[in-house]
């Protein structure tokens, strides 16, 4: 085989591999949080306390990470069959809350809010309030007095 032909074949193969790799990288779907291994396993109260004590440090440690939380679910909100939020309610220091805005009352009811994956909605709805559970999810950070987790699943 002539050298130029060999070179052409190699160049075409490399080109195809590069295009496939770039397309895969650009269109890569989000991580499957249910199957992902948790980077941290923490008690709900301890995790929330870390955010309350030093949000900047907690942000850098936990935001964007898959975390397994242990604790007592106090509220289960089910606005629809496919949208369920499990809440590890946390006591608030009401003297620190802003009372000058409409969120005053909302902020008094803060906690760790876990938006469940669709396939875990039914199981979560059937969980008795105040049950001690393990929930795995993706930590998104603080919103007011709520620590937001999404794509959550109950760990058996």
């Amino acid at each position, binding site marked *: 085989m002539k050298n130029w032909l060999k070179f052409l074949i190699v160049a075409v193969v490399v080109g195809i591999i590069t295009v496939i790799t770039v397309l895969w*990288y*650009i*269109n*890569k*779907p*989000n*991580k499957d949080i249910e199957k992902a291994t948790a980077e941290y396993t923490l008690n709900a109260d301890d995790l929330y306390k870390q955010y309350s004590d030093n949000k900047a440090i907690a*942000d850098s440690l936990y*935001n*964007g990470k898959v975390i397994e939380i242990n604790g007592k679910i106090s509220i289960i*909100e089910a*606005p629809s069959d496919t*949208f369920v*939020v499990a809440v590890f309610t946390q006591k608030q220091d009401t003297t620190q809350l802003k009372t000058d*805005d*409409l*969120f005053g*009352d*909302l902020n008094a009811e803060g906690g760790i*809010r876990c*938006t469940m994956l669709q396939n875990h909605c039914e199981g979560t709805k059937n969980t008795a309030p105040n049950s001690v559970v393990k929930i795995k999810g993706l930590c*998104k*950070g*603080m*919103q*007011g007095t*709520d620590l*937001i987790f*999404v794509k959550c699943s109950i760990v058996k």
Partner: protein
Amino acid sequence: MKTILRFVTVFLMLTSCVFAQKYITKNGKINFYSDAPMEKIEAKNNEVKAALDASTGDIVFQVLITSFEFKQALMQEHFNENYMESPKFPNSTFKGKINNLKDINFSKNGKYNAVIEGDLTIHGVTKKVKQNGSLEVKDAKVIATSKFNLAVKDYNINIPSAVAGKIAEKVQVTVDVTMDQKK
């Protein structure tokens, strides 16, 4: 004694009416969409916090930027790190008022047009905005919906020239928030 009892009863009734005027949620939805020549960008956020005081017309929204979910991981990463700088500006907020509060009857089920005006803060930049939307009163709930366009440059969101053609200058924002009456 009877007078005191009557006074206490009336006071309790009045205060319960005032408290019943507040509607809240932490599960509101905001989606945005942009359709540029080379790429469609779509994201949704189901963790929007909102509150409405029906007696004053005050309405507030708080959105955690990192809660926006994209189909593609790379797009989500670029959105948070390069465009919205979410570690530096983690929340967007809207604080405003319903201008035509007198046209909305919160004690009667129905769908009402609402004109909402206030301060919208995105990426650390606050702008006065005025938008039309609708408020649907449904038993003990108020469903607020609106659809509007935002120009990204108004909020100092810099699009690198290399991808400028891929990203639309305006994004369409859809708000759909069901607030429950605060008990």
